[in-house]
């Protein structure tokens, strides 16, 4: 799986270099942790590892990391307690919770405790990487942005106008939402699950690849008649709007 190009196409507009995020992995399963660390390192990130909850909390409190990946069930201190302790101390490092508990209400519990995203085990590494990098961007993005731009495609979040090379493109509300999410993550892969969760707010598997059909509809609207396709399919991973 070729994921590394997501770094190469990193947008310049964002004021920090995502090439090398420092990620703390709090995970007690040695195999799972080493697999995760290997993948993250290969993607160009720097990782630290804690094998139990107490060590994890101590390391996270140093506030040196860009992202925390926290397993829910850990020896000595469980994942949700770590997050609560950190949030109580005012440490706002984005947290991705990993858990074998996949139910919707478990997910709600995780987010309520202060987690920023929730990924059920087992997961594809591409899914994890896309989410981790998404969290890293969210942390550095300016929230008051009203216009998003990718190459010659521009969307105005206030007027909801979409233009490409000065040409207005009419979109349905859901299509706009889909495009907005892709644009916010321009230059980065977003997975089908991320789209389903963030654009539709559905946290279940719709079995048929409904997302593909929606994306291809959107593509026919924003890419048709233009030389350069912007909305790309990344095989085995998801979709990406080209930033440059």
């Amino acid at each position: 799986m070729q994921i590394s190009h997501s770094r190469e196409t990193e947008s310049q507009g964002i004021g920090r270099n995502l090439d090398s995020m420092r990620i703390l992995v709090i995970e007690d399963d040695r195999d799972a942790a080493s697999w995760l660390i290997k993948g993250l390192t290969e993607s160009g990130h720097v990782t630290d590892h804690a094998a139990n909850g107490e060590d994890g909390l101590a390391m996270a409190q140093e506030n040196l990391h860009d992202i925390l990946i926290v397993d829910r069930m850990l020896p000595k201190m469980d994942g949700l307690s770590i997050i609560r302790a950190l949030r109580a101390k005012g440490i706002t490092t984005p947290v991705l919770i990993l858990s074998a508990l996949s139910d919707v209400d478990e997910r709600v519990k995780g987010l309520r405790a202060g987690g920023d995203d929730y990924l059920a085990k087992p997961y594809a590494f591409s899914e994890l990487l896309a989410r981790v990098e998404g969290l890293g961007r969210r942390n550095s993005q300016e929230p008051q942005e009203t216009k998003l731009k990718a190459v010659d495609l521009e969307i105005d979040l206030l007027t909801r106008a979409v233009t490409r090379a000065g040409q207005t493109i009419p979109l349905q509300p859901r299509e706009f939402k889909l495009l907005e999410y892709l644009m916010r993550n321009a230059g980065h892969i977003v997975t089908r699950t991320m789209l389903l969760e963030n654009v539709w707010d559905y946290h279940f598997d719709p079995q048929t690849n409904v997302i593909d059909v929606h994306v291809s509809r959107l593509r026919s609207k924003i890419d048709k008649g233009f030389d350069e396709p912007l909305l790309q399919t990344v095989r085995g991973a998801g979709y990406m709007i080209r930033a440059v």
Partner: protein
Amino acid sequence: MQFNPKILKTSTFRLAAIYLLVFALSVGSILAYVFWNTAGLLERQTDATIRAEVQALADQYRLLGLRGIVQTVQRRSAERGGGVYLIADANGNRVAGNLETVPPQVIDETGWIDFPLDIQIGTNKQRRSARAFHTDLKDDYELIVGRDVQELRQFGDIIRRTLYWALGIALVLGLGGGLLTSRNFLRRVDAITDASRAIMGGNLSSRMPVLGTGDELDKLARSLNEMLDQIERLMTGMKEVSSNVAHDLKTPLTRLRARVESALRSNSKTEYRAALDKTIEESDRLLQTFNALLSIARAESGQSREMLQTIDAREIVEGVAELYEPIAEEDGGTLDVKVVAGLNVLADRQLLSQALSNLVDNALKYGVTEENPKPHIQIEGKLEEGNVIILVADRGAGIAAEDRARVLDRFVRLDSSRSKPGNGLGLSLVAGVMKLHGGALLLEENNPGLRAKLVLPLHESES
């Protein structure tokens, strides 16, 4: 009959004891009334007769003097009517009458006396009871008029004894009855306790004893038995599910293993790659199956009922329809939505959306036939008899009436659908989600096609 001190603590016994007390009091007052009206009445009548006679003699004495009453007293003393008479002078010597001396019980001027009376019957001297009224006449004469009340007293004693016995027997019977009832009740409660112990011990087929009397204990035992039947059904169902799961997972795992093994033997890099790709695909499908099973189990156990919120089913219907509409169009078909507002239900948005999306997904997959290859799906949301109804109708081959119950079971796939992707869990999940929401999934004929009907209770909002 061994006495069991436990009986004293039972509520039945306490009830029996209170009952017994009330019973004893009422029996006691009835018996007192009987006594008053029999033996008591006779005594009162005797007293009245004596008083009347005393009055008459006193009047006679005033009119005729001593001689007048002496004659009367002598005449009456000679009669054998049980009368007792005495006129005595100031020294206590008899002037007339059948009583020899003034009885020692006489102390004051006038009043009632009860005294023993010795009578000569033949050669036998007999002691009997007498009751008399004595009064002082003028000139210090004393008049005593009385009756032999021996029979009366005996009659009173008999009545009194009879009544005591009656009271005693009533109490004994009441107490015995109370104890027996409690013991009987206790024995049945013990039987129920024993049965539940046996069930807890693992013998799930054991049942509470039902006597067929139709009383409260029988009703209790019956509903406990119904509960046990339900539990046993669930347990059996669970066992079936586990073996179905094992069977249905074995097939893909075998396939997966075989593929990896043959790739390993091939020693070719392309084959390795292909096998690994297929392995990921296969394991993703397995994970999907697991997740679906977990969702069903969760919905069926009803443990997330507290997560339910008031939502308008219209939003759910429109959301899912919007998600699937492009797919229907892609296949050259249509997806029509007709939904009214105000379909408030108490629901979990995710689960209900998932259930509906399963139905729409099924309609897209199976709602087509060879002659009719384009899916035409109608989704309808409406109110019907106080229920929220969501219909998903297709124009496919439908499901035969005899298969409609079966397809709700886990892993059941009809032969006609085996060629299409799926795990046989979709409708089970819908049924489970409906159960969690207190609703139902009904499969109906759409002529042609299948009409899946979700029935949910309308939730009246408090505002």
